[in-house]
Structure formats: structure tokens, C-alpha cells
């Protein structure tokens, strides 16, 4: 049921790493042990760069990778709109234009127990400084 792109990104993530001089946003999914640190560099309300590090299941880690792919170059407000579409997509909605970069996560809609793993990285938008 795992999307081929998801498996591929799990092995070769695009944005795994850290950003200097950026305080990471820490996220934990205590019930399964997923841990993420999301580095978001912002300038004038725009997310200009991002990285992630952490350990956990492929869903949580790949979701972090596509999260950064999707929100990089967007304003925080735009990022939140993308997030809303992403949340709808992983619950079964069609892939909207806004979330095409995260479409490999659509398979989560067939794994209801994994929705919280997929959401973890995206929760950073609520904690952004």
C-alpha cells in the first residue's frame, strides 16, 4: 500500500538535515515513538528554507520531507492552506494543486491508523515562532 515515491523518498530524503542559526521545532508522537525536529527559516513571513531530522516510521519521516518540499517559498499563511488540503487528502480527498508535492502521502488515506504519523511534521506550523 506504500506509494513507490514514498518508499523512494524514505531511502533518499531531499530535505533531511539541519539549518544553522535556526531553532528547531520539536515534535513527538509519544504513542509510537516518532520524533521530529523541523528547521524552518523564515524571512518577512515567508518560509525561505527548511530541513528536518528525526527518527520514526517512514510515514512520519517522508511526510516531513514532503512538508518542506511543499511549503518552501510559501508564506506561512499559504503553508497553512497547503496543510489544510494535505489533511483533507490523507483523509481521502482528491489531490489538490496545492499539495501535488506531497501526493505520495495520499496512500495514508487507506491507513487510518497512520494519520497521526502523517500529520506530525505539519503540526510545526502551529508552533512556528
Amino acid at each position, binding site marked *: 500500500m*506504500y506509494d513507490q515515491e514514498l*518508499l523512494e523518498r524514505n531511502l533518499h530524503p531531499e530535505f533531511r538535515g539541519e539549518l544553522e542559526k535556526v531553532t528547531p521545532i520539536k515534535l513527538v508522537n509519544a*504513542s*509510537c*515513538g*516518532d520524533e521530529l525536529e523541523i528547521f524552518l527559516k523564515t524571512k518577512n513571513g515567508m518560509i525561505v528554507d527548511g530541513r528536518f531530522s528525526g527518527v520514526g*516510521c*517512514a510515514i512520519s519521516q517522508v511526510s516531513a520531507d514532503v512538508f518542506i518540499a511543499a511549503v518552501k517559498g510559501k508564506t506561512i499563511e499559504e503553508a497553512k492552506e497547503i496543510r489544510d488540503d494535505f489533511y483533507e487528502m490523507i483523509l481521502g480527498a482528491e489531490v489538490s494543486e496545492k499539495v501535488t508535492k506531497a501526493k505520495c502521502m495520499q496512500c495514508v488515506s487507506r491507513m487510518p491508523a*497512520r494519520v497521526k504519523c502523517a500529520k506530525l511534521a505539519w503540526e510545526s506550523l502551529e508552533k512556528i515562532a
Partner: protein
Amino acid sequence: MSEVYLDNAATMKKHAGAVKAEARFYQKINANPLRGLYKKSVQATTGVNAARQAVLNLVKADKSYTVIFSRGTTEAINLVANGLIRENDGFGVVSRGDKVVVDIESHHSNILPWKMHYKNVVISDNLEKDLKGAKVIALTGVSNVTGKDFSSRIKKVRNAYPKAILGVDGAQMVGHSEIDVKRLGVDYMAFSGHKFGAPMGIGGLIIKKELAEKLRPLNFGGEMVEAVSLEGEPTFAEIPERLEAGTLPAGAIFGLNAAAQEIDFKRCDQAKKLAKTAAYELRKISSVKVLAANGLIVTFQINGVHPHDTAQILADEGVMVRAGWLCAEPYLRFKGWGPVVRASFSEYSKPSDVIALVKAVKKVQQKMGVK
């Protein structure tokens, strides 16, 4: 794609006779046990009492024990934990400040009911040291993580502490091997029918009558009182009914009786051999770390792959296993394992299930790019 069910420790495949007996109860009888004066109600009552006896026989209990029905192990342990507390209502035998010891191998169901009611609960990884002064000792019968059988430890504790109230979480024990509660010396053993092929929603406490007499009911209401007046105290029914307020799930109880008859310990032993074979074969896979293999359970991890990913890909291959903390987080943390993958067998497991499991695990290895 064939379906391979290896999550029997969560809930066992049902005995055909148990499912049939439950259906037949509703088709042919469908009356409340205990109170009705017509024939069908009498049949329901007789069936409920027969099931009680079947459970007692299953664990070789003598007349000093009875069975209190509950929804399962969790509710049974909650009944004991709450029921033992001495208040001013005439029930209970211990105080909230008394020492309660549970073992580190405990399922959350054998931890939380105690933690919520008592102030001095020790989750012990060193029973020899921690048991001194314990008023209640609540132990694991068979670990749902490792499959290890703790019968000899239970006997040892009984001999060393003859006066403590000694109870066992028997969820993974009852119906999986021949046991003798008298020899174990336990005051109570909690069990779930669905873990040994009976319907969900029925289980209970196999408990010394003497102790059951002192327990506070978890629920008050119908069927558990003799007389209720406008003023003054109610007169409660005798045990076991006093501890079983409300209409019992009689269909499930008929199913439980059938399951208790249908259990085949020889087939169960064969399933344990299958589990051993599975562990042996899994150990040959380079990325697999088998953490425990006892009885009907094999617990493992694949290096570099989160257990939920393993279980998901196994599911895609038609193999159903459990992954995560297995409702035993303190133990998995104590062992330093974190979340795990568990394959659990039953007397209905087949050699082809082992082959499918091993093949699917290799697929996980390949899909996740680990060696």
C-alpha cells in the same frame, strides 16, 4: 492474496462451535438468565452456570473458587482493584495506602487499575526485593510481549508470601496451556474469552469465593440485589451474582462454554512449535533481530525499519501482525527495545503461515532498502 492471521495474542481466531453456540442462543433461547420463570429463561440460567463450571474445569479450580463474569480481563482487574479497597460500606480488605506490587512484564491492564486506586504501587523488575510488605501482588501469567510463562515464579511468590493477596493477569495464559490455579496458589486469575476462541465481550475472574465475598461490586443495579426498599439499605444478592449487575451477555457466555470445550491443548502445543520454527527462520534473515520467542509469541524488529512500517508492509503482503508498544510500554522501555513487531500463533495456525511471514519479512527488507 491469501490472508495470514498472526495476531492471535490480540484476539484469537474463533472456534466454530463458539460462534455457533452464541448464534443459537439468540435464535433458540434469547431470554435473560436468572430471573424469568419460563422455560427459556431457565435454559439461559442453566447455560450460564454451565459456562461458569466449564471455566473452572479449564483451570482445574476446585470448589473453593467461583467465576465472576466481566467483559474481559481489563474489567476483571478493575473489579478487583476497586473492590478490594476498604471503605465504610462494608466491602474491601485493604486500604489505599497499602503496598501493591505488579511485575514489570505487566500489560497496561495490570498496571493502570492499581495505579488509579492505590497510592503505593510498585512496578517491579526485582520482585525478590520489592515484595516485602506487599498486601496485594498482581502478576503476569504469560507475557503478551515475550510469551514467557511465569507459572514457576507465581508458585515461588505464593510460597514466600502466603498471606498476601496474589492475583494473576491470565489473559495470555488461560486456554493456551493446561494450568492448575490451586497449584499456582492464586487468589484470583483474570481472563478474556476472546483470547482463546470465545466471542469478544466475555471474560471474568476465577476467584477464591472467600475473597469474592469481600469485593465491592463495580456496578450496582439489577440482578445483584435481593431487596430494595424505599428507605434503608438494600439487601445484596449472593456471589457471583452480586458482582455481575445488569443483564449478562448470555450469548457470549454460551459461546465461552463451547470454546472452553473445544480448546485442544495438543494443537496449541503444535502451534508453539510453529512459533519456534518462525523464530528460527526469522533469525536467518540478516536484518531481523528476534527479541523473544516463547510459547505462541515471536517478537522482533528489523534493523533500521520502524515496527509500524514493518507491520504495514506485512499487511500489504496479507500477513497480519501487531506492532508498537503492545500495551506494555513500561516493559519495552525497561528492556530498551522501544516499539516492536509481534507475530502470535494459535491452534489454527498452519506451517504455510510461517512461510508467508518469512517471505513477507524479506519483502519488507527489500522495500525499505535494509540489509
